[in-house]
């Protein structure tokens, strides 16, 4: 491996990484996926723990033989489908163009002095 002293010249990728446009892309990505991941994991474990430890509550009949537990379970399907579509739409509309522009800049080598946008 090459050394990594502070006087090593900055690579193209580091220049891109430092650029405002990339930082904004990265921030938007993390601000979306991390809270979303936390949300569905909390919702999933809430469901798992209720199903494991709150039998009476989950076994409550809502209508006919449809129990609270069944509705919660079907709710997991609904939330999974919803998060999938929300993410796909968000990524298609908000991220792809920026990512594509940065990719072209890098691959065509049109980087200079850290100014990407």
């Amino acid at each position, binding site marked *: *491996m090459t050394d*990594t002293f502070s006087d*090593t010249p*900055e*690579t193209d*990728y*580091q220049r*891109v*990484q430092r650029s405002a446009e*990339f930082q904004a*892309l*990265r921030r938007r*990505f*993390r601000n979306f*996926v991390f809270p*979303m*991941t936390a949300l*569905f*994991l909390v919702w*999933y*474990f809430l*469901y*798992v*723990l209720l*199903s*494991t*430890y709150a*039998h009476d509550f*989950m*076994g409550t009949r809502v*209508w*006919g*033989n*449809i*129990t609270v*537990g*069944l509705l919660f*379970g079907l709710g*997991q*399907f609904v939330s*999974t*489908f919803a*998060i*999938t*579509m929300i*993410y*796909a739409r968000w*990524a*298609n509309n908000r991220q*792809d163009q920026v*990512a*594509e522009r*940065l*990719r072209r800049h*890098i*691959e065509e080598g049109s980087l200079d002095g850290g100014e990407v946008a």
Partner: protein
Amino acid sequence: MSTVVRTATEQVGEPLVNIAIFGAFVLVTLIIVFRASRTNRTAADYYAAGRSFTGPQNGTAIAGDYLSAASFLGICGAIAINGYDGFLYSIGFLVAWLVALLLVAELLRNTGRFTMADVLSFRLRQRPVRMAAALSTLAVVFFYLLAQMAGAGGLVALLLGIDDRAAQGVVIAVVGALMILYVLVGGMKGTTWVQIIKAVLLIAGAGVMTLWVLSKYGFNLSELLQGAIDQAGEGGEALIEPGKQYGASAMSQLNFVSLALALVLGTAGLPHVLMRFYTVPSAKEARRSVVWAIWLIGIFYLFTLVLGYGAGALVGPETITSAPGGVNSAAPLLAYELGGTILLGIISAVAFATILAVVAGLTITAAASFAHDIYANWLKRGEVKPDGEVRVARITVVAIGILAIIGGIFANGQNVAFLVALAFAVAASANLPTILYSLFWKRFNTSGALWSMYGGLISCIVLIAISPVVSGKVDPNTGASLSMIRDTSIDFHLIPLENPGIISIPLAFLLGILGTVLSKEKPHPEKFAEMEVRSLTGAGAEKATVH
């Protein structure tokens, strides 16, 4: 009248019809595989199908890869017998895909080439990290493969009416040989087509049966549940409440929570799932793949809910448990009840196709990992001609195929259902922490990766080995062994926990942090910059090959 009842419990349907329909599937897929193989030239063709599949195609193949015989036959049976708790199991398998969608699929597509190890070793020291990632890949694949092949034996007994162990072994060998042929000739392209065809047949077949069952109950789910409750007789109400399977004791509850953790975090660390993301031309197509996969897998699990309760209502738990194949026979018996010999033949053929497709996906993953990670990059330090690597991969396919056949014959009739859960636990412990750390944590380094991967892998295997799953679990009513080792006098279990996830997953995440912080390794900010920029923008990502 009595003969009808007898044939219904001993041998349902007509084995010749089952074999004929399965034979037709094999013939059609073989033709497609041979046609697809004509464009197999480079390593990218062989491992990643030239990265030329579209998102919807790959999403369908992912569903075909993921919906194993265990999830089709196993979950239908679990719902028929245990009701709600079987349904609970399927939800973890679905929600897990959000981890892959949000955190892994696109970033992995942008930074890797053929295997999981490509991504993990991107900015760390190549050889040790590749070796660790390859070993954990091979471990996951081996456990999963053995579970599938062992399941094949039970399926043979049920669907072809073959009770003789030796004859079952012959059928397992035929299934294994077919799989070797597909993967050897077709590579990833052939494997993908087998998975696509199988997924379409499986989901369509399950869909038709679902509508059929619902139509018998006026499309009223509550009525269907009532049917299952009535058929179960005394205590049937428990079918629609949680706890029938996992609620017995505090320990079984903890076991379930542990399993739920491994299921939701394991999927995004399964090497054969990760490898599928390389078969599309871009990260955007990888995203579309997962969107398609989530819809198909989710809809399929909704079908299994109806099919499971339908089997409970129309066939009945007693008939199911006493049939050859036991719980796994719920879906085939329901097919016979609904559509007679022909529908049973179709569903049986689909079940065989399922084993074939899943095993093929596992085999090409293991072969790629051995040839690309261990042979080309570890042993030969990258100094190897691409066609040399593919040749090694093909040899590995044959070796793994033979191993799978032998393993399947020996595991036939053994109690190895825990192997699928173990594969998920290893994937969640040994693979996922390192994948996430290397994608998102700047400071992460080689020793963190090695601590986490080996720690996760070893802790999972040790915890399983000293658990009641392997030895010392005895049915309190019958005195029969419920462990892998059937001899009840051998008992070396030390802990009551049956699913290692709740210990091994947090441990592996923790070891990743400790290994990183305690190591003196110098960070490589330029490598992290390259990985981060590439992962989010797709710059320098592998392109599709043009033929």
